[in-house]
């Protein structure tokens, strides 16, 4: 996996909550036994009309988002099926960062990304960033007012900088384990195999049907 430290790119917005992985990559593309070739089919049902042409009504098809690599969406992004194909499709379609808001529900806030999607993203070098609803609203506003808006995402500093005048800075949290994995581009199977002796010792004593 390629390490991720900073990334600068054009920001695109998708004003939808609960974008599920069926929408990100519909099932007909899950028949492939390969890990590549999913990019052009990301958001397929929204992206193309029935005759296969780009759907002019789909937000991400706008000319100003042509070279985007940062996606801002609404809460609970990547819910539904565990298919990692959804992450492969996004990465292969050129996205390197996805930003979404957590949802404030009084005593508890709901995360911006579904659990399995978040894990799958980390394993493929796709950075997912959770901001507050207000911050995401602000970014939507900036994107609307500034065609071709660029942002720099700095994982080391945990900062997003929108390139407007004056620059707008948003700080974000990231799990230490995921930060390290992305920064170093670690292969997690190789990481786990460092614990081979622990695993072997565990297996010797483990009785799945007993205490």
């Amino acid at each position: 996996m390629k390490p991720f430290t900073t990334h600068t790119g054009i920001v695109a917005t998708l004003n939808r909550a609960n974008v599920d992985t069926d929408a990100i990559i519909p099932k007909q593309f899950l028949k492939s036994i390969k890990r590549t070739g999913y990019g052009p089919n990301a958001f397929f049902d929204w992206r193309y009309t029935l005759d296969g042409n780009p759907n002019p009504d789909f937000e991400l098809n706008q000319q100003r988002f042509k070279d985007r690599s940062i996606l801002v969406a609404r809460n609970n992004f990547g819910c539904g099926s565990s298919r990692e194909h959804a992450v492969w499709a996004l990465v292969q379609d050129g996205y390197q960062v996805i930003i979404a808001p957590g949802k404030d529900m009084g005593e508890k806030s709901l995360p911006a990304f579904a659990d399995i999607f978040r894990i799958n993203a980390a394993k493929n070098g796709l950075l997912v960033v959770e901001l507050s609803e207000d911050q995401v609203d602000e970014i939507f506003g900036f994107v609307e007012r500034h065609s071709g808006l660029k942002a720099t995402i700095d994982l080391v500093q945990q900062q997003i900088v929108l390139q407007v005048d004056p620059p707008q800075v948003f700080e974000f949290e990231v799990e230490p384990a995921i930060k390290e994995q992305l920064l170093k581009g670690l292969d997690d199977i190789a990481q786990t195999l460092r614990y081979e002796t622990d695993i072997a010792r565990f297996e010797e004593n483990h009785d799945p049907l007993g205490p």
Partner: protein
Amino acid sequence: MGKTLFEKIWNKHRIKDLPDGSTLLYIDRHLVHEVTSPQAFEGIRLAGYTVRSPHLAVATMDHNVPTTEDRFSIEDPVSRSQVEALRKNCADFGIKLFDIGDDHQGIVHVIGPETGITLPGLTIVCGDSHTSTHGAFGALAFGIGTSEVEHVLVTQTLVQRKPSTIKVEFNGRLGPHIFSKDMVLKMIGIIGTAGGSGSVLEYCGEAVSALSMEARMTMCNMSIEGGARAGMIAPDDTTFSYISSRKRPYAPKGEALDRALAYWRTLPSDADAVFDRSITIDAARIAPQITWGTNPGMVIDIDQPIPEPGFAENYSRSDVENALAYMGLKPGTKMTDVPVDVVFIGSCTNSRIEDLRQAAAILKGRKKAEHVQLLVVPGSHQVRLQAEAEGLDKIFMAAGAQWRYAGCSMCLAMNPDQLQPQQRAASTSNRNFEGRQGKDGRTHLVSPEMAAAAAVNGKFVDIRQWKETS
């Protein structure tokens, strides 16, 4: 302080707590299917890894397989290559495969429990989000992505962050014609599709204890639709008698079973165990549930009108507007006035023998409405054989249904069973996402009785006061 069912299993499988705060967790059982595994096996070959414990994995094909008589010859070359890849991968790495035509082939979440592979106290994973189904036995079971499938194959472990726990208590007893499908849909309607994020749900209470194993599986199955990693139910005598049934080739028997039983009885959450959160639902007041929108949280009681944009709990105005535009429905409409084109009885949520019996009880001596296409797809070949032994297939066919072979079928329409654009379905499956059952198809999730009655009437009905009107 006491421990929850989840904590007991988590602690037992904890190999090591890692410096970054995550845990290296041992995995007891790995279920494999054709869609999410080929890239994992490819990764193993490329890196020169081996499969650490092939005997702890078992595979079947379910998503891609046709469900008609001629299911052995898969016409779609891409689907066929995926099925062939699984055959080759299982043969090369020594993994047990329930192939098409095998007596135990079927939907992975139906055959695990049925064969006795799924047992209390185990950690069970599968590259499939509905792995939560197996939690019905008091196992910790959750879905993983393909990179994690590869990780489990190579190391028999996963690196996991400890989830929080939510206790979901259903007090009281269900009314007539109300099922665990309605209970779990009701819960998702309350907590929303992300309400269980980062959490494991433990279902308990009088109404849960009263459920059969199959009904419990339906409930745990849809935990993921509430955003949870897993759903669990404490094992009890209902669980134990299901497992001890002689039909389960992989379940422990004799002395091994006695030993296991003694252990399993220690698993339920202690009386003083503390959950991170809890919610309580009055089971007696649950009405038949039906989804009106494009995710399972967009759900109402069958006798309520479709909400106005801006008035649906957990959803913004534009969420509701988008959903209703897609579904071709208007706010204020009663679902009992809405006609259906297709009725699908199947999927890992509701395709077990009890589900088919419930549907058959409604369809017995009746006929589906003329314009309706009715599909009954058993979850496994064993379920199919059992249904035929009970004569349910005859009831279905006399009612005008197509009686199929086991597979995922129209649950996700990756095989030839699909909705046509704008067709409206009553479905016993678990997801009503846009395009899930076919491009531009419109799905309404209901229980098997509600689905069967909709097939007869040609439109949705309130099963509590159901009279045939066709």
